[in-house]
């Protein structure tokens, strides 16, 4: 493995330490739980706390979205593996400013179970908790079973919008409604061109034959809906936009926010090449792009691939999305 690693078993601990050392003006590590990273500003008395968490290896997600008007505390799991119930609980306690805590996380079995247990634990401490579960990954289940879909890069919008709402002084109910609206308005798709390797395993845990691509790939290499011949950037962009928008079913003239994220080992210029075409296709469908993000926002170790996320926005979501933030991820 041509990688920068020490002991594969310590990668996550070292990542968190490096992150906290790099951003000391924004974050701190929980004193008693090294797997909980907390905003320097948290808890804010009277503000709804925003918590998220998930497996590591998606940097800058999840920690990178801690900051002003953003997430208050993050629970960090092993690579591609849910944080412990205890870490979720500690994050909840750290974020609690007395107005309740919104746990905004992604729909993975491990996260679901650990958050469920954490909720039980934190309730004993008197914290009021609500959860919103991201399920923006179109190819992970048919639309009729949307509740089974996984959460991917759309989580960033869910955090941004939920956090901005909380910063405005909204109640826990209101925060969760806005976060829910954000994720309901979100659709994502991933395309993989090359696998990633968990350092402790030492070889890729899935294969993508040279000359092919995995359409609908998940954030951990979960197989997609189709293994196709590797197309041109334009072909791929067309397919991704089609998958997302066919599922989205937006009215002509709708406004959208677009996020293209590299998965870790895709050159940034290729992401812009894709965006050039996606923008054409999206506007050709009668949609108006309010804002776009292109870069490594939510990665999967050193996977070669990209995700496309399209969020439909109304005035409320636009305003929340445009609220200034200061976090390492943006």
């Amino acid at each position, binding site marked *: 493995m041509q990688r920068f690693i020490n002991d594969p*078993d310590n990668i996550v601990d070292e990542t968190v330490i490096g992150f906290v050392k790099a951003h000391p003006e924004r974050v701190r590590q929980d004193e008693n739980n090294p797997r909980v990273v907390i905003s320097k500003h948290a808890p804010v008395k009277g503000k709804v706390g925003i918590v998220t968490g998930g*497996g590591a290896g998606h940097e800058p997600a999840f920690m990178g979205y801690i900051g002003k008007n953003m997430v208050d505390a993050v629970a960090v*799991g*092993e*690579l*591609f*593996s*849910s*944080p*412990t*119930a*205890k*870490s979720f609980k500690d994050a909840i306690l750290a974020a609690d400013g007395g107005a309740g805590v919104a746990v905004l996380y992604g729909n*993975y*079995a*491990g996260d679901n*179970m*650990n958050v*469920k*247990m954490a909720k039980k634990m934190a309730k004993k401490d008197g914290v009021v908790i609500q959860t919103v579960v991201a399920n923006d990954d179109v*190819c*992970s*289940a048919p639309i009729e079973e949307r509740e*089974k879909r996984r959460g991917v890069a759309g989580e960033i919008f869910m955090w941004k919008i939920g956090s901005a709402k909380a910063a405005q002084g909204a109640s826990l109910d209101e925060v969760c409604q806005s976060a829910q609206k954000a994720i309901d308005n979100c659709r994502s798709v991933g395309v993989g061109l090359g696998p990633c390797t*968990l350092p*402790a*395993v030492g070889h890729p*845990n*899935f294969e993508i034959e040279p000359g092919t691509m995995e359409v609908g790939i*998940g954030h*951990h*290499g*979960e*197989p997609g809906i189709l293994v196709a011949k590797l197309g041109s950037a334009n072909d791929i962009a067309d397919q991704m936009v089609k998958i997302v928008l066919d599922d989205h079913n937006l009215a002509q003239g709708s406004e959208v926010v677009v996020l293209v994220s590299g998965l870790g080992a895709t050159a940034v210029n290729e992401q812009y090449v894709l965006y050039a075409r996606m923008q054409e296709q999206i506007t050709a469908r009668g949609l108006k792009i309010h804002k776009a993000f292109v870069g490594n926002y939510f990665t999967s170790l050193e996977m070669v691939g990209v995700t496309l996320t399209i969020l439909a926005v109304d005035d409320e979501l636009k305003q929340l999305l445009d609220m200034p933030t200061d976090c390492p991820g943006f």
Partner: protein
Amino acid sequence: MTSFKNAGGGDIIIDVAKIIVENKAYLSEIDGKIGDGDHGVNMAKGFGRAADRLADSDSSLDEAMSVLSDILMSEIGGSMGPLYGMMFADMAECIEGQDDIDAALFLDMLTAGVDGVQEIGGAKLGDKTLLDCLIAAKEAFAASVENGETFDVSLEALKESAVVGRDGTIDMIAKIGRAARLGERSRGVVDAGATSCCLILNILSDGVLKRL
């Protein structure tokens, strides 16, 4: 003998942990076929730490299971933290305070384990999970005890059925977890969790057999 001592039974959990650590690469490899390839890593980390913490502790079986459960729940996370964490927590709770564990109590313990896993994970028989091994093993043990067989004979039945339950996952389509989205593509591969569960049940049974 018709029962074994709870006291000192912690060594059985140390043996279970060692087998899991030994099978780290293998468990990850099968998880990689239709999952994300980390099952062995997750399991070895949790069970390995438990083995370290239990070494020379001379704990009872329930104490050892509690230690393992705590480590899984508070240090491992993933799916295994809650699933095996709850399984061992509920099994420990079932035998806590008991000096001797006979077949009836052992069956209660297994049943508590199954319930714990189902309560937190919501999966059922046939979903291609560790439950397909765990439930098959428990049912075989229950049937054997009901048939008036001795503890040790029933444990052999348990071990055999754990293997059968594990192998039964090969032909299943995953209904839950990461592999669920694969549909037909998930058929033909043994489930990783069922494989680790089969290891656990076999070593656990062997440990009891040695003590009967």
